[in-house]
């Protein structure tokens, strides 16, 4: 630490070169921040998943509905604590590009299934009382400027009403938030009873069931017991934990996310290579200066330390700045694109990884010149100058 002044002076020895190096490190870590946040969205909420929640879907495909009659049979399976259900509505608000998730469900069951969703009790009660009531997440409310008390039309793309119309109107009774910064609130919930009564077809079915297992019950046993009950029926089921469901769904996007990650790894590596090269170059140019330091009585180890700290300092300055700007942009993107790509999030793990990479790259870029500086013979070095 006592050499900080010296290190600082060395860093700014060639202002243009250092600024350029800082800028390329800055860009590298800005990219890292943006891409890891987008990559997080592709994981599909795997980390937010609750280990005690199971999802029951049709075995052939998620798009096939399940009979409503399954509800009681699932609820009475040993180890099941509570059950909720939801369906995919797939409508849009005002114009087709404003598409977000809308799910018909049962108000009280849904909110007790997802305790991370927060909404004032009186709003929940008001929703439960109003058959045409609906609640929206904070992200949707902000994006489309929807307020409690509004009556909004949603255009259905699948569900025609019995009277042939495709416009469904809802009274907004509440706005919910989530207490998990990683979770999404970019969806809307409304009453299944209204859905069931008004839709023209597929009556008596729901999209999927969600259940909570009893504390201490084994989720795997419960899953197997449920699937066994419906084996060889026209609607066989596939029960999995919320995490496994999210994971397998995220895998559907498949190799794309992986390829993007690989490409980015390559880019990142190159940018670091560029800045690393400049740093070792700047040390090579100063051999005689380092010899002078040694002549003045600096120990081998302090010379090593001074050179290494310089390279780590440059990485940290550029990198932290890039990460910081990236973080601000991610916050903006999460707000602007919440409905389109929910779950954009810069996780603490990514930040830690980035900082570790900065220090690691600083060491890699600085270690060879630093060792050379440490082993420098004063006479040779001064003679060369």
């Amino acid at each position, binding site marked *: 630490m006592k050499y900080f002044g010296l290190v600082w002076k060395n860093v700014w020895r060639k202002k243009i070169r250092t600024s350029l190096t800082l800028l390329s490190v800055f860009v590298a870590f800005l990219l890292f921040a943006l891409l890891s946040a987008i990559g997080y969205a592709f994981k599909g909420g795997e980390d937010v998943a609750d280990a005690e929640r199971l999802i029951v879907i049709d075995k*052939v495909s998620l798009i096939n509905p399940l009979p409503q009659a399954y509800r009681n049979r699932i609820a009475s399976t040993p180890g099941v604590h509570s059950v909720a259900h939801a369906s995919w509505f797939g409508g849009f608000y005002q114009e087709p590009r404003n598409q977000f998730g809308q799910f018909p469900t049962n108000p009280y069951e849904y909110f007790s299934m997802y305790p991370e969703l927060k909404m004032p009790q009186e709003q929940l009660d008001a929703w439960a009382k109003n058959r045409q009531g609906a609640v929206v997440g904070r992200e949707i409310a902000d994006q489309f400027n929807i307020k409690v008390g509004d009556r909004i039309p949603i255009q259905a793309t699948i569900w025609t009403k019995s009277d042939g119309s495709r416009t469904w109107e809802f009274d907004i009774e509440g706005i919910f938030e989530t207490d998990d910064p990683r979770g999404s609130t970019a969806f809307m919930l409304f009453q299944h009873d209204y859905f069931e009564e008004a839709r023209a077809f597929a009556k008596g079915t729901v999209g999927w069931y969600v259940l909570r297992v009893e504390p201490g019950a084994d989720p795997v046993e419960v899953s197997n017991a449920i699937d066994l009950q419906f084996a060889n029926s026209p609607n066989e089921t596939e029960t999995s934990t919320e995490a496994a469901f999210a994971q397998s769904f995220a895998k559907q996007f498949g190799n794309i996310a992986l390829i993007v990650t690989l490409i980015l790894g390559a880019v990142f590596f190159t940018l670091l290579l560029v800045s690393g090269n400049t740093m070792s*170059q700047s040390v090579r140019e100063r051999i005689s200066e380092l010899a002078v330091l040694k002549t003045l009585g600096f120990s081998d180890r302090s010379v090593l330390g001074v050179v290494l700290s310089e390279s780590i300092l440059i990485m940290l300055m550029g990198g932290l700045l890039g990460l910081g700007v990236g973080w601000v942009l991610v916050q903006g993107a999460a707000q602007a694109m919440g409905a389109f790509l929910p779950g954009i999030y810069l996780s603490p793990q990514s930040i830690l990884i980035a900082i570790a990479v900065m220090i690691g790259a600083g060491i890699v870029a600085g270690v060879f010149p630093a060792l050379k500086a440490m082993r420098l013979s004063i006479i040779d070095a001064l003679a060369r100058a």
Partner: protein
Amino acid sequence: MNTIKQIIAVTLLNLRNLPQRIGSSTVAVVGVGAVVLVFAAVLSMATGLERTMLSAGSDDTAVIMRSGSTSELNSGLSNDQTLIIANAPGVLRDGDNPIISAELYVVTDVKKRSSQTDANVPFRGVQAGAFAVRKNVSISDGRMFEPGKNEIVVGRAAQSEFVGLDVGETIRFGQTEWTIVGTFDAGGSVSESELWTDVRVLQAAYRRGNSFQSVRVRLESPESIEVLRQTLEDDPRIDPDVLTEREYYSTQSEGLVKFIKLIGYPLTILMAIGAIFGALNSMYSSVSVRGKEIATLRALGFGPTAIMVSTVVESVFLALAGGILGGLLAFLVFNGFQVSTLNGPSFSQVVFDFAVTPELLIQGMQAALIIGVVGGFFPAIRAARLPVALALREL
């Protein structure tokens, strides 16, 4: 005239000296190469996807769905409605029979080879006219399914992307067992991501009664879509969206293509900025290493313009070398690479190849050129302004 001679002489000298500055030159080349590589690789996903989706679309085929549907998956048409469409004007006829195919589009879970996890694979029930309404679709291996039997023909791309779809295999979806009897080729279009069977069999297996989701018709000419649209929209028994197949597929791919471009272009710009810093750095160090050489040249009577131009040329040369390297690598590694992803509107997998097209490579080289010019310009000014006496004294 003299200046031009000088420029040529100094530039050649510079380029011949490049091996002496191999370290920083290589870094500049690699930096630009990475930009072009990533640009071409990311954008080739968008071009590949567009090519797959749009090559399926023809202007003389119309797709009719229930109005308001965003894709076949959420449309619905009754048997009576499909008959109304079959008899509408504008539909091409083969003798007395209209060339149409009323179809059912569902999704089924099949394992992906790459991840070994279930993916939503499109499963289409078609009528006999399916091959006549589409161009370029033909059975390439095995045989056509027999109507009324649980037999499937598989698109070529689906066969290579998903597990258990080879000809002769049986596959179980829920309670029903299906036999794969053939492979079809569709000229690399999106149809190749699908499984096809007899629509009647699929209706029964998925308990869809006598309902359909879309009708494809061959039009008498691309213009006759107007007649068809007008007739169907005026008919109170049906509430349709009538699109040409090309329009339909371009709306289907729009979202995903936009998303890839939305990430790809800003990414490239950011990286290009990073590469400009890299190029600037190596050119500044090239100028400082050559300080004495430049001063000597100036003392011999070479003008500042010659020095400046030669520095920019060196930078552009390095950038273009990087660009060629990156473009070549992108072409060799990514062109034709097959992937599949979930396409939003149809909620099912689309299998496509990365397409590193000449247009992409040209755009990549343009980016390299810009990086080279900008990266060389400022160091060139410094080189030209180098105080001769001071630089020589360093000798």
